[in-house]
């Protein structure tokens, strides 16, 4: 049963600490997205990759967020330093035909709380 795997599922940290969220996309999917869900903004696009190359990260606060794909099986989203306003659920999604149909497969999300 292929699925997108995200870790950690829950993270509570203090302001100023570094947070790293990891995502294992579905094998064979060449496009990976990071979204953030908040009550006010809904599903907000942070960054996405195709064939491991970053295509758009304009949705990320550049001074504190960074996204990478060290290899085809791992995508990371790092926040350093974290702030209370970063508290949200972060979703990773992957797809193989996104350009044609837009269909993405989402992970269960990483719920981040910054105190």
């Amino acid at each position, binding site marked *: 049963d292929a699925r997108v795997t995200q870790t950690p599922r829950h993270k509570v940290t203090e302001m100023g600490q570094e947070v790293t969220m990891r995502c294992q996309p579905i094998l064979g999917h060449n496009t990976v997205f990071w979204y953030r869900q908040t009550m006010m903004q809904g599903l907000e696009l942070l960054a996405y990759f195709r064939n491991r190359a970053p295509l758009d990260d304009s949705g990320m606060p550049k001074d504190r967020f960074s996204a990478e794909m060290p290899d085809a099986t791992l995508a990371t989203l790092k926040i350093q330093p974290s702030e209370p306003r970063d508290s949200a659920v972060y979703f990773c999604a992957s797809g193989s035909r996104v350009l044609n149909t*837009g269909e993405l497969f989402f992970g269960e999300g990483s719920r981040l709380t910054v105190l």
Partner: protein
Amino acid sequence: DQQVKQNSPSLSVQEGRISILNCDYTNSMFDYFLWYKKYPAEGPTFLISISSIKDKNEDGRFTVFLNKSAKHLSLHIVPSQPGDSAVYFCAALRGSQGNLIFGKGTKLSVKP
């Protein structure tokens, strides 16, 4: 500047009746429109899509209608079931960019 707008944060419907969820968009360059469904503590799951060259797509109880002149699409669920209670996200794709943009979602409650 929101390119995909869902103006109703919530909708309540009686079981067996029709649910209509609405979505507006501003960019006429979108190629595909999609609806995703999300249950609490889970990731969104793909529900149904429509190409910008079509005006209707049907899949079982779910039908999506696209009105390009009005830049408006809607999702119809008939008949509505309690298991349909979830948050529904409208999304739009520009194929040339591969960027999938979501609305803020509408929470549907189907009451028995």
